[in-house]
């Protein structure tokens, strides 16, 4: 009973952290001479006020969810994958290349192949840092950041050179973009809005990732490696292999996110020279969503919708109360900071529980010691 109440409190921590962030946002709005209530009302209407608004929110949430699912897997293995941006870009490039070069194939076959190519591209881009971490002890935060930068340059190169839209290659403008995908090779829309099949795929995958993490040996091992690599190794798990798998899967999901952005929303890749120009920061916002969903694939669904809604609503807010939508990016940052900071209360409560359990059971000295060193 007690533990249930406690876990309920744990689940509410991110909500409390968000409320705190929104409160700070309200103060910032006041400082910007905008009425916070009017602003947040506009934000809500912009995100969920109409069918179209909801559809836009879900479109925005789709890459967050896909990247976030990969983050759930990576972070569960205690692998800090911050390479979502680069993995999305490479996934998009692989998928687009297949989509543009497979003309003549039936639509659904080529779309499927393209999505798989996206998965492959992202998987490669995540797998490389995985191998570097597992076998060469290279910090994955750094290598994934480097891989992001390399991916951006690769995209810029391909879109100005080999993959440039033939029309642009002839024109004087030379806009760095690929050709547009033919209509039959685009992800079908679900309702008469911009909502596309990618959103549904993402939700199905969320369920599959849940099953993977908690109902399969692979998932168990990934989590074991994350919780205590020494114990996992002692238990016969090849830790290095699962580090690679965790990053590879993380990259694969981000790659799919990039592919669905092209095939469901933009129908081509276009670059402004930076990664955010293509990804809209989804590589980082996916981390935000996954953390907000407590690295649980199913909770990451509402978390992604929440952050998608914030960003879509931000545009309405900008129009209604003349507050730049950049405010929402700043608030997203605060949510992350508050959520990771609030972890300390969860840890403290957990430790109190352990102390109580120790007092009740009075385990031998050695057991208490091993617990300490494992922490």
């Amino acid at each position: 009973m007690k533990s249930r109440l406690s876990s309920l409190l744990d689940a509410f921590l991110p909500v409390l952290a968000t409320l705190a962030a929104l409160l700070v946002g309200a103060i910032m709005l006041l400082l910007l001479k905008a009425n916070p209530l009017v602003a947040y009302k506009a934000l809500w209407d912009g995100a969920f006020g109409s069918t179209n608004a909801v559809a836009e929110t879900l479109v925005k949430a789709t890459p967050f969810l896909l990247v976030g699912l990969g983050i759930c897997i990576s972070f569960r293995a205690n692998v800090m994958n911050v390479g979502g941006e680069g993995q999305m870009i490479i996934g998009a490039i692989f998928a687009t290349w297949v989509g543009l070069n497979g003309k003549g194939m039936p639509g659904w076959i080529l779309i499927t192949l393209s999505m798989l190519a996206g998965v492959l591209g992202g998987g490669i881009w995540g797998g490389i840092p995985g191998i570097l971490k597992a076998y060469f002890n290279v910090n994955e935060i750094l290598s994934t950041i480097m891989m992001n930068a390399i991916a951006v340059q690769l995209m810029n190169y391909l879109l100005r050179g080999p993959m440039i839209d033939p029309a642009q290659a002839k024109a004087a403008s030379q806009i760095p973009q690929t050709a547009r995908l033919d209509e039959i090779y685009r992800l079908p829309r679900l309702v008469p809005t911009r909502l596309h099949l990618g959103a549904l795929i993402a939700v199905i995958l969320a369920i599959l990732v849940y099953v993977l993490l908690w109902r399969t040996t692979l998932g168990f091992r990934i989590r074991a490696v994350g919780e205590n690599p020494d114990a996992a190794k002692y238990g016969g798990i090849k830790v290095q292999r699962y580090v690679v798998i965790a990053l590879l899967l993380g990259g694969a999901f981000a790659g799919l996110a990039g592919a669905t952005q092209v095939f469901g929303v933009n129908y081509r890749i276009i670059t402004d020279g930076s990664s955010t120009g293509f990804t809209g920061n989804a590589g980082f916002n996916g981390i935000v969503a996954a953390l907000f969903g407590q690295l649980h694939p199913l909770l990451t669904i509402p978390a992604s919708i929440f952050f998608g809604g914030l960003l879509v609503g931000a545009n309405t807010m900008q129009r209604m109360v003349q507050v730049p939508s950049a405010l929402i990016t700043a608030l997203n940052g605060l949510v992350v900071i508050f959520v990771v900071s609030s972890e300390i209360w969860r840890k403290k409560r957990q430790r109190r529980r352990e102390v109580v359990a120790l007092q009740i059971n009075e385990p031998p000295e050695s057991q208490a010691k091993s617990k300490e060193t494992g922490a």
Partner: protein
Amino acid sequence: MISDLFSTTVIIGIISSGIRLATPYLYASLGETFSQRSGVLNLGVEGQMLMGAFAAFYVALKFGSLWGGVLAAILVGAVLGLAMAFVSINLQAAQGISGIGFYLFGLGMSNLLFQKMIGTVETVQGFPKIHIPFLSDIPGIGEIFFSHNVLVYIAFFLVPVAWFVLNKTTLGLKIRAVGENPDAADSLGVSVIRVRYFTVIFGGIMSALGGASLSIALLNVFQQNMTSGLGFIAVALVYFGGWRPWGILGGALLFSMVNSLQLWIQVLGIPIPSEIALMMPYILTILVLVVSTSKVRGPSALSKPFERGD
């Protein structure tokens, strides 16, 4: 033409602007070295740079004072560093992730303030070049080393200073002790918390100065997301340089020289895809990390929150 690249003037130009472009990396990476040496990974450098760049630019534009701009950047950097210190030291938050939070916050906030308080693209008259008498008249050498603005000179001067502080002073010893073995340092009476607060705030100030060097000394404009990943590279340079100021200098120069080279390639209209050149330093960094992690070891307590055992 490709042969243009090998004329003396162009080579001097490339090296000279390469030295200038190393400035933001140097500030941010040297500051990050101090945080990491004490055991705190600050991944929010990019956000701190953007905020520093904006603060400095705003003050320079509205009040016409460049040094006022530098001061504003220092203040903003200190506040952000303080926040990062509180979150990672007192609240013991996962440092890699809270850093992403600070990045997003700085990215959004600097853009928001820019749109609200400035709005349009403006330029400022940045720090002027200082020609050091006699030395700047030496052909070639003069242009390369002795005709830069003051923030460039300070950045390079800080390299030996950082080396000296870290390796030859009591403060440096405390910082290293806290980063290697906080429990031992604590038992010897060193306040782990105070040392880490100092280094993280210092890191914030240095990142903000790196941003300021972009907005009021090198580019003299402010744009949203103007650092575009530079702050993340600065963090990587700390690893690249093996947590040593001189190694960081080498890494910063490598990145800035390649950047400078590709700028000149574009200016001269040489048909080499500059993106490939721009990719090289990142690939090289990864290779260096592969080779060096077996030899150079980082601070043992890096990114581990400290808690006094009872």
